[in-house]
């Protein structure tokens, strides 16, 4: 991989796609194509396209338009916490 002179600002960020496994385990289906509507700016984006900050005590998914936190995931030995008050809704395609 190329080492581009990095502003750590962007270099620390990956896509929501990177946490597809955690999301799939929580929801029991692929969530990367589910659309999240930002409660702050009303932007809609697939969860796979959200900004993901995975290097911390938990995962923070942020709106690609306004950077507000859309959802947070914390995994403890006994539970998974999912908080999504930054999303007005998640829209999932009906499963056939």
């Amino acid at each position, binding site marked *: *991989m*190329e*080492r*581009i002179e*990095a*502003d*750590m600002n*962007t*270099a*620390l*960020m*990956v*896509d*929501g*796609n*990177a946490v*597809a*496994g955690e999301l*799939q*385990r929580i929801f*029991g*289906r*692929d969530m*990367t*194509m589910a659309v999240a509507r930002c409660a702050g700016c009303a932007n809609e984006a*697939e*969860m*796979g*396209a959200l900004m993901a900050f*995975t290097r911390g005590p938990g995962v923070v998914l942020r709106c690609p338009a306004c950077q507000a936190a859309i959802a947070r995931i914390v995994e403890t030995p006994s539970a998974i916490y999912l908080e999504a008050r930054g999303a007005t809704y998640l829209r999932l395609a009906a*499963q056939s």
Partner: protein
Amino acid sequence: MQPLIEWQAGTVTEIRPETPQTKSFTLALPKWTAHRPGQHYDVRLTAPDGYQTQRSYSIASAPEQVGELELTVERIPDGEVSPYLHDVLVPGDQLEVRGPIGGYFVWEVGLGGPLLLVAGGSGIVPLMAMLRHRAAQRATLPARLLYSSRVPDGVIYRSELVQLSDRDHALELFFTFTRQAPEGWTGYRRRIDEAMLTEVIRPFEERARVYVCGPTLLVETVANALVRMGLPTELIRTERFGPTGS
């Protein structure tokens, strides 16, 4: 649709060096399911004291390679998982994996084209799965790969890519070298920029399905340039590797 994904122990059947920094690992999986090109698997290591660590790696193989999974992994010197895979793992070992995962960064022949793939470094891996799938399906839709490497021996899958392109005139390759180009190289010698993207995408008249994978900053640059060039955002799919991908 994917049901619950579970960890399973795959058996390493082959380890193949690709470049000085990358190796491909072929695993036989007891519960293999066909993936979609572009998806990844999670790999988990467990130490005797119970310590666990986990990383995601893109699938390099095509779903047509039934029963097996190929992951291509770059060795990150101060990483935790990739040095284990490169230095410790041998054929016959078992490796815990779960997948396939992700439905966002995927392309199948059925989605159509033309197809523009843009890779930086080991970002080629999920795009290779797409090209192998395209070849296995004998698809003829136009495809172009723009692949940025620092140095000539950092190009992963070079001979296979050249073979694929020689056999199939609808697949065209564009390499660029950012640090050192091969001797006599007449192609691109710089980081991917808007001018380069404009040249590569020209015959597609800005209607291509675009998949961009590589370091975060390369992906940002390419995605922003494509949007400025007028490509519809819904046709652009990106996958950022983050700071290390270790």
